[in-house]
């Protein structure tokens, strides 16, 4: 490595800041991400994603749907998402939640869309905008559950 190389790279770094800077809205979204922190809810982690798992490949290619599974202690969330019109449709089921569970879809911490869960915990919601979403559930016993983020 030479100092000449360092200088050239410093020039490139300067140009990147001019030609391809981090957009202001990206910096703002980075700061605002902190507001999505939720210490009360248990995180249901993503355990399967058809866009990442080769096992799901034939299904995905046949239907163009993305299948996602999330698991927390005693609760599991399964969902499929697909592009429909200008937005996204999400359908799925919350297992182990019990009747009386209240659920919403959160879009990067600001907008929320309430879900109607049927007796089996199934739900269907349309017209979700592209971007990060997660499912939040208030369980009957007072426990709270939130899935990890999915980028639509």
């Amino acid at each position, binding site marked *: *490595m030479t100092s000449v190389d360092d200088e050239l790279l410093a020039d490139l*770094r300067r140009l*990147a*800041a001019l030609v391809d800077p*981090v957009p202001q*809205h990206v910096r703002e*979204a980075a700061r605002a*991400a902190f507001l*999505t922190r939720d210490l009360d809810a248990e995180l249901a982690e993503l355990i399967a994603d058809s866009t990442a798992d080769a096992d799901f490949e034939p299904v995905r290619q046949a239907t163009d749907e993305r299948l996602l599974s999330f698991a927390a202690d005693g609760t599991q969330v399964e969902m499929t998402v697909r592009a429909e019109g200008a937005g996204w449709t999400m359908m799925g089921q919350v297992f182990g939640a019990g009747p009386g569970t209240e659920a919403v879809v959160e879009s990067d911490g600001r907008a929320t869309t309430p879900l109607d869960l049927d007796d089996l915990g199934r739900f269907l919601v349309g017209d979700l905008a592209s971007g990060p979403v997660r499912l939040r559930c208030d369980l009957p016993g007072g426990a709270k559950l939130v899935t990890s983020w999915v*980028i639509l």
Partner: protein
Amino acid sequence: MEAPDHTGGADLIARAAAGDGTAWDELTEQYTSLLWSVARAMRLNEADSADAVQATWLRLVEKLDTIRDPDRIAGWLSTTIRRECLAILRQRTKSVPHEDFDDLPDEGGPGVDDGVLRDERDQALWRAFSQISAQCRALLRVLMSDPAPTYATVSVALEMPIGGIGPTRQRCLNSLRRIMAVAS
């Protein structure tokens, strides 16, 4: 000479985990350029890059309390942004294996024609940058992060052996100089 590791990453993580929003803001100040550079190096367009960067920060918020090795936060962020970018690329292109992302159509990265660069040498340099190999562009784009990333971070972000970064960097900068010499 390699830039030193960003300092205070572990401290910022600890403070953010304790609820300190200022520490979080500092974290994002320190690493958003790195994340953006990795996404751009992986040839995501601006909108997809924005999504990938945001997704990475949202995931860090989820994991704040469980980051096992806060000293390696740059590595954690690099791994995560890489994964987010690959997920977005897979969705966009259906089933392009990630080894082949160099073959993706170029999203028309920023050029020199939009008048941002006035200086002729700057224009020539950026034009030359767009003409080097895809591997070189990816490496140099990540190295353009501000502050400069460590080789350990670059290695994680591009899944490149750490020992290969210095020699590849040299080769890429030489090829950049050759293109500029021919053009002038």
